[in-house]
C-alpha cells in the first residue's frame, strides 16, 4: 500500500527472507542485539578494538542474513543528524576527536543492531517476542496499533494528496506547508474518529482492557537460539574483558 513509504516496504521485504538469522527466536534476537547496544554504549572512549569487534559481529550477522551493504548503510543514515552534534566536539573539548569518533562508533553500533533486528524479524513476530519477554502489554499494544494503522493512515494521506491535486493544487516545495498543516489537522480528526470506531469494534469482540494470554502462546527455544545467545554473550564478555 502506498504512503507508508518505501522504507517500511523495504524493511518488510528484508524481514521476509529465510536465513539462519531470520529463523532465530525473536526473544533471543531482541536480548542479544539490545545487549550489544548496551555493551557498546558502556564501552570507554577510544577502545577502538572493542568497536571493531562490534562492527565485525554486526557485519557477520548482516552477511548471514543476506542484508545488502547498501540497504544497511541507507538505514544507518538515520543517525546523521544526531552526529552533527558530535562533529563540533573536536573544536570545543580537549581530546575531542577521540570523543567524537567514539560517539559515532557507539551510535553506529546501536543503530546497526536495531537494523539487524528489524530487518531479520517480521514485525508481528518482533512484537510477539516483546510480549513473551513480558514487556509492558500497553506499550506493545501501542506499537502494534501504530504499525497497523501506519498503513491505513498512510494511504489516507495519499488519497487526500491526490484529491488536492485533482482540484488543481500543485504547489512546489515550501509552499506545500499550508496544505500539509491542513492535512495534518484533517488527519488528526479522522484518526480520532477511526480510533473510536476501532475501540467499539474491539469492545464488540469482548475487549475489556487486557491482552488475553491465549494470544501469546509460549514457544520453546531451539538449540540454534541457545548457541546464538551463548556465542554472542561470550564474545561480548571477551571483548570487554580483553580490550577495554
Amino acid at each position, binding site marked *: 500500500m502506498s504512503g*507508508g513509504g518505501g522504507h517500511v516496504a523495504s524493511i518488510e521485504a528484508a524481514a521476509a527472507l529465510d536465513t539462519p538469522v531470520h529463523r532465530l527466536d525473536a526473544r533471543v534476537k531482541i536480548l542479544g542485539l539490545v545487549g550489544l547496544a548496551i555493551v557498546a554504549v558502556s564501552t570507554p572512549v577510544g577502545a577502538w578494538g572493542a568497536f571493531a569487534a562490534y562492527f565485525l559481529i554486526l557485519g557477520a550477522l548482516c552477511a548471514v542474513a543476506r542484508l545488502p551493504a547498501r540497504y544497511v548503510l541507507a538505514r544507518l543514515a538515520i543517525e546523521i543528524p544526531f552526529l552533527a552534534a558530535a562533529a563540533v566536539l573536536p573544536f570545543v573539548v580537549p581530546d575531542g576527536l577521540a570523543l567524537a569518533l567514539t560517539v559515532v562508533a557507539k551510535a553506529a553500533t546501536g543503530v546497526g543492531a536495531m537494523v539487524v533486528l528489524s530487518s531479520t524479524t517480521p514485525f508481528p513476530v518482533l512484537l510477539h517476542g516483546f510480549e513473551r519477554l513480558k514487556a509492558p502489554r500497553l506499550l506493545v499494544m501501542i506499537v502494534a496499533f501504530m504499525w497497523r494503522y501506519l498503513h491505513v493512515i498512510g494511504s489516507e494521506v495519499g488519497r487526500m494528496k491526490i484529491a488536492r491535486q485533482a482540484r488543481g493544487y500543485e504547489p512546489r516545495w515550501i509552499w506545500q506547508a499550508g496544505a500539509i498543516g491542513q492535512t495534518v489537522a484533517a488527519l488528526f480528526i479522522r484518526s480520532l474518529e477511526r480510533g473510536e470506531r476501532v475501540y467499539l469494534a474491539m*469492545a*464488540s469482540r469482548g475487549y475489556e482492557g487486557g491482552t488475553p494470554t491465549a*494470544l501469546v502462546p509460549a514457544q520453546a527455544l531451539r538449540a540454534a537460539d541457545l548457541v546464538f545467545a551463548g556465542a554472542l554473550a561470550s564474545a561480548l564478555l571477551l571483548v570487554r574483558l580483553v580490550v577495554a
Partner: protein
Amino acid sequence: MTEGLAIVCDDLHFAYPDGHPALDGLSLEVEHGERVAVLGPNGAGKSTLTLHLNGILEPQRGRVEISGLPVTRAHIREVRRRVGVVFQDPDDMLFMPTVGQDVAFGPANFGCGEAEVAQRVLRALDMVGMSSYADRPPHHLSFGQRKRVAIAAVLSMGPEILVLDEPSSNLDPRSRREFGEILAKLEQTMLLVTHDLPYALGLCDRAVVIDRGRIVADGPIRDVLADDALLAAHALELPAGFTVTSFDA
C-alpha cells in the same frame, strides 16, 4: 413469552448527547434462524440499533433481550459473545498485526485456551476461504479479503446472531457475490443492515424498514420491496429496471 426469540427490542429510546433522537420507540422481534434485512435512509437509526444489540449503547428507555438474556451490564460479556457485529469498514475491525491473531482476538477475550483458540481460528478462516492467510498482515490483503477476514473474526467467537453493517459496500461485483455466498451458507440468525436492496432480497426472507428511530414497515421482503409508495416515502430505491417479480431468489 420472549423465551423462544433470538432478539427482542421493546420500545427502545435513545438520543445522542446533541439531543438528536436516534431511536424513538423502536420495537422488533426476531426468531432464531431468521434473516432480516434492516432498511432505511441515512440517519434513520440503523447503526444506533446495531450498537444496542450488543450493549455498546444502553437504551435510555426500553429493553433489549438476546435469546432471553437481558442486555445489561451484568450480562454484557455473554451478550457480546452471542452477538457478532461485523462493522462496515474492515480496517476498523482488523487491528492486530496478523490475520490469524485478529481472528483469535474474540475467542481469546472470552477465555478460550490456546488450543481451542487455534482451532477456532482455523475453522473460521476456512469458512471464509482465507485459511492460507493466517500469518499475513491485514494491509497486504485486498479490501474484499479484509472484509472476509472481518467476518471470520466474528465467527470465531461462535455467535448465535450476526449483525452485518453494509456488508456489500465498496466491494467489486465479484467480491460482493462471493461475500453473499459466504453469508448464505451461515446458519446464524442474521440482521443485514443495508441500502443494497437486491442484495438483501437475495439473502433475507423478511425486511423491516426503519425511519426516524422507529419501525415503519415489517413483513416478507418481497412484499416490502414491491411497495413502491413505502420505498419512496423512506428514501429507498431499487436499481433502475429492477423489479422484485423478475428476481428469482
